C-alpha cells in the first residue's frame, strides 16, 4: 500500500542528494544552522579514570541538542525537492521530533509528530519544544505506547496521505531507501571525526569507536567511514533495561531473531509466534524492539561488537560524566559511556565515544535517580 510513496523516494533520492546544489545547501545549513563541525573533545579526567585516551564526539552541542538534526536537515531539503507540503515523523525521546519540528519551522512546512503516550509523559520538555516550534504532537495510544507504536502511527498516516506527505524517519530503520539515506546524512559524524583525530593525534583512525544503538542512527553515522578500516573496533551498546533476561529490556541483538518490522527484515524482539515484544529502557530513544539492517549485518558478520548496558549502568555513567567533565549526557549516550566500566582499553589507545545528545530532556529522570540513589 506504500509502494508508490517509497518508490518515489527510492527512485529519486540518490540523484537529488548527489546533486551539487543539494550538497552546497546541506553543508551550509549544517555549518551555520546546526553548528557543525561539532568538537572532538579530549576528555582528560575521564581518560585518567579509565586509564586510556577518550575523545567525545560532541553531537550534544548540535542545534536542538542531538545528532538527529543532521538527518532532518537532509530530509527536509529532499522533501522540498520532491514538492511535499506536509511532514510527518515518529519520535521516541523527542529529539528526532524536535529536530523535525525545527527544520519544518525553518522551511515553513506543516509538521505532525507521532509520539508514544508514555514517552509524552516522560519527555515533557521536548513535547513543549515541538509545540512551540509549531508542530502538532499526536499521541500513539496503541501497544506499548512508545517508539514502536509511534512508528506504526506515522506509517498509517503515510498510507492515508500518499501524495503530499514526506515521512522523515529518524533512524536507520524502515523500508529501503531509509536505512541507507539516514546513514548517509549521519555519516558527517565520522567524516569529521577522521580529520579531527588526524589533527589531534596524527592518525585519522582511532583504535575504537563506541556508540549507543536503538534503531542505530548515531552509531551508523559514527561507524560509517570506519566500516572498511578493519583494524578500528566498532562497539555498539544496546539498552539492557532492567537486565537482558529480566523481561524488561531492549537489547535486540541479544534477544532478537530475524523478522520483519516497519518494512525491513532485520533482528526483531519477538515471541516464537512472531508477535513483536514490547521493549523496555529508561531511555526513550533506545526503547525500540528492532535494529537497523546495517547493524544486524555488523552483528552477524562480527564486524561490530555488541554490548549492552542496564538502566542503572547508564545512570551511573551519566552522573560520572557530569562530575568529571561537566557534561550532562542524554540517557541514550550514557549507555555508550557505561561500556567503559566493562571493557578495559590499552593506555595508549584512542577511543572515540559518540556523545549523541545532551541530557536536558532527561532531567526529570536524573532528579528521581538522585533522590533514589541519595546522590
Amino acid at each position, binding site marked *: 500500500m506504500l*509502494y508508490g510513496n517509497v518508490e518515489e523516494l527510492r527512485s529519486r533520492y540518490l540523484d537529488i542528494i548527489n546533486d551539487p546544489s543539494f550538497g552546497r545547501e546541506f553543508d551550509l545549513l549544517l555549518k551555520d544552522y546546526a553548528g557543525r563541525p561539532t568538537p572532538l573533545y579530549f576528555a582528560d579526567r575521564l581518560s585518567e579514570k579509565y586509564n586510556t585516551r577518550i575523545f567525545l564526539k560532541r553531537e550534544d552541542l548540535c542545534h536542538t541538542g542531538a545528532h538527529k538534526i543532521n538527518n532532518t536537515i537532509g530530509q527536509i531539503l529532499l522533501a522540498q525537492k520532491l514538492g511535499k507540503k506536509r511532514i510527518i515523523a515518529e519520535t521516541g525521546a523527542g529529539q528526532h521530533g524536535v529536530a523535525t519540528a525545527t527544520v519544518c519551522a525553518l522551511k515553513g512546512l506543516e509538521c505532525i509528530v507521532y509520539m508514544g503516550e508514555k514517552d509524552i509523559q516522560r519527555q515533557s520538555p521536548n513535547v513543549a519544544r515541538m509545540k512551540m516550534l509549531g508542530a502538532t504532537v499526536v499521541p500513539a495510544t*496503541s501497544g506499548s505506547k512508545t517508539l514502536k507504536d509511534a512508528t506504526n502511527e506515522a506509517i498509517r498516516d503515510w*498510507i*492515508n496521505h500518499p501524495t503530499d506527505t514526506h515521512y522523515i524517519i529518524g533512524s536507520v530503520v524502515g523500508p529501503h531507501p531509509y536505512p541507507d539515506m539516514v546513514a548517509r546524512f549521519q555519516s558527517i559524524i565520522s567524516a569529521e571525526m577522521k580529520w579531527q583525530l588526524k589533527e589531534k593525534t596524527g592518525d585519522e583512525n582511532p583504535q575504537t569507536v563506541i556508540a549507543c544503538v536503538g534503531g542505530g542512527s548515531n552509531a551508523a553515522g559514527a561507524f560509517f567511514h570506519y566500516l572498511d578500516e578493519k583494524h578500528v573496533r566498532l562497539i555498539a551498546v544496546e539498552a539492557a533495561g532492567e537486565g537482558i533476561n529480566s523481561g524488561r529490556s531492549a537489547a535486540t541483538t541479544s534477544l532478537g531473531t530475524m523478522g520483519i518490522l516497519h518494512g525491513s527484515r532485520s533482528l526483531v524482539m519477538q515471541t516464537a509466534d512472531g508477535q513483536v515484544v514490547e521493549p523496555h529502557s529508561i531511555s526513550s530513544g533506545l526503547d525500540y524492539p528492532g535494529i537497523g539492517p546495517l547493524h544486524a549485518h555488523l552483528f552477524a558478520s562480527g564486524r561490530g561488537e555488541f554490548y549492552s548496558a542496564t538502566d542503572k549502568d547508564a545512570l551511573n555513567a551519566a552522573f560520572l560524566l557530569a562530575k568529571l567533565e561537566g557534561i550532562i549526557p542524554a540517557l541514550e549516550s550514557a549507555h555508550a559511556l557505561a561500556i567503559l566500566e566493562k571493557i578495559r582499553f590499552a593506555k595508549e589507545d584512542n577511543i572515540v565515544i559518540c556523545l549523541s545528545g545532551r541530557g536536558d530532556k532527561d532531567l526529570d529522570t536524573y532528579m528521581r535517580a538522585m533522590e533514589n540513589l541519595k546522590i
Partner: protein
Amino acid sequence: MKIENGIQAVIGHLLSKQTTVNKKMMSRIKVLFERKKQNILNVYFTAGFPALNSTLTIMKSLQDAGVDMIELGMPYSDPLADGPVIQSSGTIALTNGMTIPKLFEQLKNFRNEIQLPVLLMGYMNPIIQYGFENFCRDATAVGVDGLILPDLPMFEFEKEFGALINKYKLDFVFLVTPETEEARVKKLDHLSSGFLYAVSASSTTGRDAALSNQEKYFNRLQSMGLKNPVLIGFGIRDKSSFSKACSYANGAIIGTAFIKALENATEQEIPSRIKNFINSLK
C-alpha cells in the same frame, strides 16, 4: 494408423479427464465468481475475537446469514494497514491466546460445516516465524482457499513466496489503491488469482469512504479489462456504502463495521448479532 488412433484416443481420454479434474480442482473462490457476478459480500473478522473459540461460531453464522465469502484475519501486534477498531480486536485476540497453530487447530474440521470460500488475511512476520511453506501447506490441508498479505510486496512475491503459494494451490489476492499506477494494477491483477482487492481510498481500514470521490478510479479499474473480479474494501460499513461499492465492482468487503457489531458479544449472542448485521446490509 491404428496406433496413432489409439494414442489420440488415449490423449482425448486424458484431456477430458483433465477437464473434469480442472473443474473439480477449481478453487471455491473461482466457482463463486462463476456463479455470482454481482453484490458479492465478503466479511472480515479477526480470529480469536471476541473470544478465543468464537471462530467457528462466527463462520457458521456468517454462512447462515447468507454472506458469500469470509476473510479470516490472523491477529498481529503491529497491523500497519489497519485502523483502531481492527487493531484493538487483534490485541484482544492475542490476549485471548490466538496463534497460528491454535487457528489451524480450530480450522481442522471446519470444511465439514462451512462451504463458503475462506481467505486468511495477515501480516508476514508471524507467518515467517511459523515457516512460510509450512503455513501454505497447513492452510491448504485444512481447506483454506486463499491468502491476503498486505505487507508482502510484489517483488518478494515474484522472487520467493509466490511459487510456494502456487505450489499449495492457494489463491492470492493483491491490493490496489487509487494511487496505484495502471501498469502496476495490470501486473498485480496478473499475479493475483481469485479476485483483486480495490482499496476504496488511500487509507487504513475503518475510515469513512467517500466512494463517489473515487468514481474515476473505480471506472478506470472497470475499463482495464482485468482478468480477476474486483471487490472493494476499506470504509464499507452499511447498506448504502455496500450497494454503492457493488455498483462499481463485483462486490465489497466489510471488516471494521462487522467487528464493531461483534464487540462484547457473548458466545450465545454471536449468531443473532451477525444475523441482524448482515440483514441490515440487504
